């Protein structure tokens, strides 16, 4: 199924949405991404990824949280769905498994 495989950026965004918990929307994801990974992405890229993840059923969204600084406009908050969480778990376990099989580095040539 298409939704079960996700790209690296998607994985990062998914993780960030997960860790931001109830405060994940475009700008907060962007800032968190910059703070935590040092990656500076354009906001439109974040939106595109969020939309795609929602389409895949890994995220849910709802509108809310109007602020003065936004000119009274609401944000679209994203939350992790259980499918999203499962995908993250799977990705991690795959990585761990593969990582565990790396041969130990031998410096005693």
């Amino acid at each position, binding site marked *: 199924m298409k939704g079960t495989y996700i790209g690296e950026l998607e994985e990062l965004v998914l993780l960030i949405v997960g860790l931001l918990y109830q405060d994940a929307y475009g*700008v907060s994801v962007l800032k968190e991404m910059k703070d935590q990974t040092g990656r500076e992405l*354009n906001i439109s890229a974040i*939106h595109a990824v969020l939309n795609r993840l929602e389409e895949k059923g890994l995220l849910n969204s709802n509108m809310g949280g109007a602020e003065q*600084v*936004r*000119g009274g406009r609401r*944000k679209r908050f994203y939350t992790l769905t259980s499918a999203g969480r499962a995908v993250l778990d799977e990705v991690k376990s795959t990585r761990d498994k593969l990582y565990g099989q790396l041969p130990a580095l031998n410096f005693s040539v």
Partner: protein
Amino acid sequence: MKEGQSKPPRWADRFLSWYCNPKLLEQIQGDVHELFYWRLEEHGYTKAKKSFIWDVLRFFRWSNIKRKSSHKTQFNNTAMFKNYFKIGLRNLWKQRLPSTINILGLSLAIGCSVVAFKWIESTYTKDSFHEHLDDLFLVTHWEDLETNKGRAGATDNRLTREILSSVAGIKHSSRYGSNGQLETKQGEKLTSNYAYFVDPEYLKMFSFEFIAGDPNTLNDAGNIIIDESTSTRFFADQLAVGKILEMKIGEAWKSFQIGAVVKDKPNNSSLRVNTLINYVHLEQLYAIQDREWSTNFFIQRQNGTDRSDLEAAMNALLPVFNKDQEEGSYLSFQLEPLSTMAINAYEVFGGVGSAPPTAPNVLLASIALFMLILATFNYINISMAMAMKRMKEIGIRKVIGSKRKQLISQFLIENFILCGLSMMLGIGLAAGLFLPWFNNIAGGDLQVNILGHKNLWMFLGGLLMFITLASGLYPAIVASSYKAISIIKKERMTNGNGLLSGVFMTFQMILAMITIVGAVMFIYTNEVNQSRDWGYDQYNKLTVTVPDAKYFEVFREALEADPTIAKLASTKTSIGRELNGVPFKYEEQLNYAELFDVGYDIPDLFDFELLEGRFFDKTLASDVNKALVVNEAFMNAFQLEFTEDGIPILMDSTQYLIVGVVKNYHYWGFDQKIRGAAMRVVPTVEHRSFVMEMREGDILAQRDALKKSLSALAPDYEVYVSVQEMILDSYFEDLKGVRNILLFTAIMAITLAAMGLYGLVNINVSTHIKDFGIRKVLGANGFQLAQPVYKKFRNILGLAVLIGGSVAVLVVEMLLEVITAYSAPIGILPISGAALILLLVAFLTLNIQVARVKKLNPAETLRMD
């Protein structure tokens, strides 16, 4: 910091609002704004502005621009429409009476339109049943002759042979000619019978249905093909194939064997069958007469041959042909497709078929249109009123969030259901009732076969759409236009609705009035015409036609000896049965007039009223072929004054003398104005019939007795004796059809108007039922209760009678002029009669509702409040 520098650049912001899907705009715009202010603090205005612009440009991608997002705005349309249907049906059921009125009215109108459509279509799609329709052509040509400048439908016979031998691409061909009625003998029985001469390929080209026999039978020149009704006429139920018929072609009797029997030609066929004989017999006849002739010539092209190529190849023959001819001036050939042959028949001289009749088509189309207008108006009125009762539903739907478009589509769907039901009922009515009845009148064989009739499908589909929109759009738009708040606050709905329904109702009543006046006038005119003075004494007269010259003297002796005959006269022309228009010339004036060749005693026997001069004189031999007795119209046409010496006048370069003038007499039906008519005496040897004045007695019995005694004298022939006073019977019989149609229209129109009125009053009373309840409680009597009901419709009816009456005079006069040349003037009587009928129907309709109000128990209606 400048004031403008604390805000994102306006143009970029506007650009974003412009391109972005409104559904996504809020979150996107919010995010970029938030980012802008964040960057403003972190990096300053210039950086923030640049980033903002960059962000806006980066968002400019299709997924943010497209207005329909597939996963976010998926409406469940089927469920919605299902719901509309359900509500529609429930509403129909809840408002049974008005709905029934609507459906009935519409279906009547639709039934009429279907009949009109079928009839009109059939006149425009003549000859469409042939299998090879697309490849069949009549050969016509343009010519420039003294006698005919224009297009001609008959081709010189020699040219047809040349065309066949030298033009490539012709698959089949057939000439088609007739020599009028042929005397036909079957055993001892002698009758006359129409026959057509064709080439053997005729039945390969044209698709007439075979009942029995060999389709190729005409290849043998001794065989013929007859149609079903001819077969029935000669052989009753017996199988005709193999039987012998003798026919007289020219002067020679020939014996034919019947090789095949085909079904009678369909009504829409221009080509006839009756009896088909091999064309060689006609060729032989003309060879004996030693003459050249032209004939209708049909060809069937080979598949894929171009029409213009054929025409060019045929035109190539003309230079040679024209050189040999003295007067042959064929300009060019034009192939007339069979499918348009009848429609174009008016411009082809000597062609085949006849163009569609205009008058009946216009009459039928306008009747159908009348009905549709009536029914649609009814519908609009009633559904407006029905919608008013549903205002609360509309209000609530609006509050919940229905858009106006949705409300309109809901109303239209309900309308569609109703129109669909009416359509089914209408088709049923047309197929089961109107069409058979119409066929009866018009002598057609129209049928509704819905399957496999593409034009009808298209017509019905179009009609359904039209009715649905015409009747439903306005009420839907008005009903959905009210503001929810005013509906729920129960504000009074004032949208000129009362005025509009009044106008519609008035219009309906006017139409009804016109049709009633039309029908009444038509019946009245017929009555007047039936008792109109014919200008001569048509009673107690019998006419017998002598079947063969050799019996003339035998018949005379027998008739002179007959005691029941008071007076006897012989003649050539039977007045009232034949017309013979010829040009007369007086000095420089040329006028056409009827010329009747009669015997000496005819004017006296028919008792024409002599105004001036004298009748023919037996003692004057000079009267024969010289003297004329003319009617007043003749004198008027030439503006002549009668003189005792007689007036000389020229006809066909022979000089005649007008010796007497008689009062105008009807020598033909009343559909034609009397024009000039002259009687001329011809010698007795030319006479072919006897006219007898009978003594008092039953004229029909006298006719039968005479027929019997004369038939005994001429055993080989059928002897016809006819009653003079009955010669117009068929004319009046024909008019009965028109009368029935007009009567039917009037009844329909008044029914529809009455139904509309009933529906309107019914709803009116229902909405004011509490009003009536309170009045009753307060002690209103029956009259006072009825008053508001009458009052509302009094003006409408008054106006309708006034306008309808005056319009009717104009319209009906025009109609009558088309149908009959002699119409009684439209007096006050038929109009007041029509008004009375209309008022009576309206009064009865109103009274049904008034009775309901009178019987009403106020407690029932007021209990709720």
